[in-house]
């Protein structure tokens, strides 16, 4: 634990919180351009957030404490991983407090609070969204943990900084079959966890298809702002994890303060690249039927299992 580490942790927290809406804006812009529209600009989500935060808070009749608390808890569960994970520095003072498993579980906690809030409203949409989201979560979990397993076998630890440092010291590991398979598996579950196509369509409001949007239908004003912001942060955190677990170059490891600005720039570039790629891929994809989603997730589970198996048999 040193001052550079602490500075890095604060820096990445600010970076994720401030950059997440920009990432969402970038993804929408890429999509718009590829679909032949002009698009609203990269900073539009920030303008939306400012507008929502100024509005009057509204509580629907019949909802309870779970509904009121969910935006705050969701935001908190997105902020803690943003401070812990090795995005800008591997020396975050909180690194020993939460490993990869704990980070994944914290993100799941956010999903759960949102599902409980949706059930709390007592509407059919809320229940529908919660039920679907929980089904997807239950099926995503095995893949995530197996990918964690595959990543940590070669390092001998589930500690995030340890995995990243090991990859920095031995760059050829990234192109090993185990690592590639785990990367693909983790990419699929990232898409499922963040509610992107083909699992969920973030821009739909059609009751037959929506998952995430059905859960947050009753939110408005500042509450909605928090949820939109937290969702963008969760996407940033997951894409950041994907980027730094498999391509950690540029991250600050030592005690020098000069490495931090470079690390910030590189990290922002990596996540922007991943986000733009995801948005570009979404243009060519249609949403899967809900009951075809398990097949997709089963496929990614198989990849993760293969990743663990190869890490054992090819080691």
């Amino acid at each position, binding site marked *: 634990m040193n001052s550079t580490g602490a500075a890095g942790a604060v820096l990445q927290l600010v970076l994720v919180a401030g950059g997440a809406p920009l990432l969402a804006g970038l993804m929408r812009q890429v999509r718009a351009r590829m679909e032949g529209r002009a698009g609203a600009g990269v900073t539009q989500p920030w303008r939306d957030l400012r507008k929502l*935060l*100024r*509005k*009057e808070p*509204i*509580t*629907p*009749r*019949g*909802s*309870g404490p*779970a509904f009121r608390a969910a935006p*705050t*808890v969701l*935001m*908190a*569960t997105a*902020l*803690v991983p943003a*401070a812990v994970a090795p995005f800008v520095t591997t020396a975050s003072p*909180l690194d*020993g407090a*939460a*490993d990869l*498993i704990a980070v994944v579980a*914290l993100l*799941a906690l956010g999903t*759960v609070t949102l*599902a409980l809030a*949706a*059930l709390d409203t*007592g*509407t*059919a949409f809320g*229940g529908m969204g*919660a*039920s679907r989201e*929980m*089904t997807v979560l*239950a*099926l*995503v*979990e*095995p*893949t*995530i*943990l*197996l990918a*964690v397993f595959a990543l940590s076998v070669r390092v*001998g*630890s*589930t*500690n995030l900084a340890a995995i990243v440092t090991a990859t920095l010291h031995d760059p050829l590991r990234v192109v090993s079959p185990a690592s590639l398979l785990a990367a693909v598996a983790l990419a699929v579950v990232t898409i499922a966890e963040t509610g992107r196509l083909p699992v969920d369509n973030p821009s739909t409001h059609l009751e037959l298809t929506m998952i995430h949007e059905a859960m947050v239908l009753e939110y408005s004003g*500042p509450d909605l702002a*928090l949820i939109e912001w937290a969702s963008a942060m969760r996407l940033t955190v997951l894409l950041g994890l994907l980027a730094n677990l498999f391509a950690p170059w540029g991250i600050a490891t030592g005690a020098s303060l000069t490495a931090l600005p470079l690390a910030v720039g590189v990290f922002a570039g990596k996540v922007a690249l991943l986000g733009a790629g995801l948005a570009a891929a979404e243009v060519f994809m249609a949403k899967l039927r809900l*009951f075809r989603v398990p097949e997709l997730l089963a496929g990614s589970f198989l990849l993760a*299992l293969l990743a663990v198996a190869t*890490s*054992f048999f090819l*080691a």
Partner: protein
Amino acid sequence: MSAVEWGLAAIAGLAVVAVLAALAAPQRVRPTTVGSCTAALGGAGIAVGVLAAAGRRGAVWLPELLPLFGVRLEFDPLGGVFTAVAGAVAVAAALYSIGYTRHGLDSRTVQAALPLFVAAMLLLPAAASVATFLLLWEAMAAASLLLVLAEHRRRTAVAEAGGWYAVMTHAGMVTILLGLLLFAAHAGGETFAQLRAADLSPAMRSTVFLLTLVGFASKAGAVPLHVWLPKAHPEAPSHASALMSAAMVNLGVYGIVRVGFDLLGGGPAWWWLLVLGLGAASALYGILQAAVTTDLKRLLGYSTTENLGLVLLGVGAAGLFATAGNRALAGLALAAALLHVINHAAFKTLLFLAAGSVLHATGTRDLDGLGGLRARMPATTGLFAVGALAAAALPPGNGFVSEWLLLQALIHSLPATAVATAVTMPLAVAVIALTAGLAVATFVKALGVGFFAKPRTPAAESATECGPAMLAGMGLAAAACVGLALAPTLLVPALARAVQVAVPGTEAATTGRLTLELSGITGSMSPLLIAAALVVAAVGILAALRVFGARRARRAARLWDCGGGGLTARTEYTATSFGEPLQRVFDDVLRPEQDIDVTHVRESRYLVDTIHYRRRVPDRIEHRLYAPLLAAVRAWGEAGRRLANGSVHRYLGYGFYGVITLLVALAVTR
């Protein structure tokens, strides 16, 4: 006499006092007297258990109490952990019973069975001879059966559940009896010290292990011997359900650890692969059934099968690692399993007691008929939420800590030398992960559908908060959950001593006060820091909103109803509809039964008048495995009845032919 021996005497004395109070006290004060005596008994159990887990020893031999053998009790740290857990559960359940049993559950038998059951569970981990062990095991089974049957006059399902429980528990008892008697016969003595020193052939050791494993696994509710559990736990009164589900099932695990590790001293890898497989199957099957059931207490019962499955998975992994010679990992896996026993006891006590309060207030356990309780029973809802967070194994709940330790043990088993380990460990991790995911869905359903939203029936509409004694019982269990979630490091020394009994030569699994730092392997996690970080983040967000957000008053508004007028409870999602996607995904495993009756309007068969839709998800193992077995037993009995038709001549004939056959046999063999 040592402190532990005084404690044993206190347990016996308090049990006698409580039973006498149940028999002698007038009905009006009976629940209070028995409840407080049993709570004191539980307190004595905690004290003795903690002392024993801290390494204090104590042994008692009472040769007069049981003819031929005598009663032999001796505490070691392993037994101490289980006694302390049972004692803690008993304190919460007994306090709760003061309020809960006042209405209709205050008969002498039911009240007297409670302290007997508790005392048997407290003393069982101290049994140091085969006869004592079997005696206490049977006392525990009989007393709990009385409690299960407490409400048999009110509901017919109770008698059926009692029947299943009686048969399964005694079938288990028979196999344990056979196993331990075989062991004692070949060891030449029946005290545990003699059994430890015995030199058995490998075949005999495996026979003993398998026979006892069947009995213990059935007590622990492991698939496919779990069928009694989802029947008996819902039908028992809720304080008894809590005791059975949080304390009694643990003793099945205790039996496996005691016999497999301590008395037999470990065994070949296939034993532990079997235990691991049993655990994995139980965890998955249990939570799948829980995810689709709509009966709150049945859901909790299946969740017990799941959690004990996870514990068995840890025990099996520990055995596997110990056989392979990796003592550090074996110690970690066993410590994780024991910690999960403790955590599960804490949150399952809380959940069953809260479910009891709901049953008490609404008269129903059906989640489809509940809802809206958070406004009517705020304290119960809050306490249930604490338990649900723990049961869903999410941070900052206590369930997460033990599952994290278990995952660490499994993940660090690679790179392994044995192919069996390399193949099973990834699968075991996947099973734990899928179980965790389904547990999240299950407890979101239980909390969100059962307690939130609008009430779905008049019964839920008119629910009121339960009394102070019941709240106190639940509050104690919730405090235990919070304590275990924030400071699991305090338990590490006691767990290390308990693990050393089973796997000698291991060190404490983790070091560190605030952070759980694994010893021997790299890895750390701090539940306290995670919880603190979450709180700091939430407070920061609220403060920022206050400073930067619009300072406008909150306004209540109508729910979005698509312009169709007010929404009623009929449009809410129910537990059935919530579980439907999961049930469809796991259709091949669950095999739900559906009937659809469509009645047409008389004038035209193209117009539908009414549709009746019924769906149930039966326990497939019960249907496929036990139903044919029971049918065969019944057919055999029916066939036997034809031999006895009431004719005296026929019976005389049987006697005559019997004697002739005997004589012929004697003549031939002599």
